[in-house]
């Protein structure tokens, strides 16, 4: 396996607070890789540094051998690395189709071609029936799917998914998991941030554990989750009982 995305020594701090310190891992082509860790471990900050929303203070991000750290988000997107947002950001003044069409314009300059591409993506995700619906009235599960549809319409090689399953019911989450697996089977590489351990163990080939902004461990998901330090980070180690 070759590393499609290579995160190398990323550091980021906000004032005196160190959010990320020397974070390094590699995402092999065709993998579903999970970033897990307790609240405040720096998962979303890491995503922001990879996708260009924030500039890392230190380190490099290589995508297909090319350094992308510090590029503007729209450049990174056009290189083939698309992301979704944990807090959904639909274009509320537009229909579902128009939302996806905006993204399709990243690959097609002309309106009809972009629209055809957007319709194909919606049909692929089983969302064709909502094409004309106003994005402003969608529920949270549909908005999450819209986030994925928009990201896919930019024809990415790597998809960054930020807590896609938070707040969904079990049925909705299971359907979305199936969809994510189907995307991987079509050749996409997926890096996702997830809070829930069961989801990660069901979905991810590999996992990185972040704790207080540093990589705790990295490897095949089952091995990572079995690691005692990971369980400590999540559950806390047994405190000595005061007598």
């Amino acid at each position, binding site marked *: 396996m070759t590393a499609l995305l290579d995160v190398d020594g990323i550091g980021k701090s906000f004032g005196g607070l160190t959010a990320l310190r020397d974070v390094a891992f590699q995402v092999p082509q065709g993998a579903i890789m999970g970033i897990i860790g307790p609240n405040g471990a720096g998962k979303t900050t890491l995503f922001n540094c990879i996708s260009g929303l924030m500039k890392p203070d230190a380190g490099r991000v290589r995508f297909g051998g090319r350094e992308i750290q510090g590029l503007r988000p729209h450049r990174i*997107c056009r290189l083939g690395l*698309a992301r979704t947002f944990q807090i959904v950001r639909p*274009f*509320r003044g*537009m229909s579902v189709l128009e939302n996806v069409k*905006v993204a399709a*314009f*990243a690959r097609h300059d002309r309106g009809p071609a*972009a629209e055809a591409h957007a319709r194909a993506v919606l049909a692929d995700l089983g969302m064709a029936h909502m094409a004309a619906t106003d994005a402003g009235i969608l529920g949270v599960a549909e908005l999450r799917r819209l986030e994925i549809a928009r990201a896919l319409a930019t024809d990415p090689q790597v998809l960054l998914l930020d807590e896609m399953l938070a707040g969904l019911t079990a049925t909705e989450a299971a359907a979305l998991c199936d969809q994510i697996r189907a995307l991987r089977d079509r050749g996409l590489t997926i890096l996702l941030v997830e809070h829930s351990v069961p989801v990660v163990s069901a979905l991810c080939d590999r996992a990185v554990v972040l704790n207080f902004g540093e990589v705790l461990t990295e490897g095949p998901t089952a091995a990572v989750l079995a690691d005692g330090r990971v369980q400590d980070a999540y559950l806390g180690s047994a405190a000595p009982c005061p007598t």
Partner: protein
Amino acid sequence: MIRFPLIPVLLVVAGFAAATQDRYLMDVFVLTCLYGTMAVAWNLAAGFTGLLSLGHSLFIGIGAYTVAYGVTAHGLSPWVMLPLAVLIAVVCALAIGVLCFRYGLKGYYFGIATLAFSEIAFFLVSAAVWLGRSDGMMLPAGGDPWISLQFRAKWPYGLMILVVLLATLIAGWALLRAKTGYYWRSIRDNEEAAEALGVPIFGFKLFSFALSAGIVAVCGAFYACYVAFVDPRSVLGVELSIQLLVFSIIGGMGLLWGPLLGAAILIPASELLRIWIGASFYGVNIVLYASLLIGLALFLPQGLGALRWRRRVS
């Protein structure tokens, strides 16, 4: 989704045809088209790109004053000054845009910054001797009317502003249905999501703002020729910027021609109120006009255009 504004275009052409016989009607037609064009242009930036400019009078004033200065001080034709007026307005818009967007001014903060720039221009011009200070400048009549653009009849003005309005509507329609329009609306709805989906937001915001400024500069240049008089109050005042906003809100900011609809209702309405009531009970017409505005804003917050052309909701 963005359909060609065929009905508004036909109505405007019909309005011109109907007004050719009457000087007063033609005056109302010219004012409606003039303010309608400026409001449509303002709304391209504000309603479609989310750049809520409160200082568009700056660009109108640049257009009007460039022409007035060229004509009065150097005897040049407005035709010569017009490209220069547009160029200056576009350069100013780009400079203001670069400053504001570079430092991430959005929403009301952007509005206040643009307002500040237009107020600076207002006070500078009010103090500039070579621009007539607050007394303004009168454009001399005479010469070939098609060169000096000083006509005795009203209809040539109607024809000119009709062409400007139609060009604005057609250009606006062509841009809104293409990639540019989608990118503008995505920036309006969520800048960060737009950028993550490959939209170069800086360039598209600059384009929107500069285009809008260029169109209103043409209107300002036309204003100088039509009224043959410019002063800071009438072409640089904040009232002018607010008027564009009012026409757009009343007509509907989600529609290309919504602001034109607002102007087409409010300008004739204010004229009618002035004729019927203003002469006998001075001031009552203004009270009624204000009540009309408040009523429309309360009962049709999406604008009049939204009555029929509501967005589809499944």
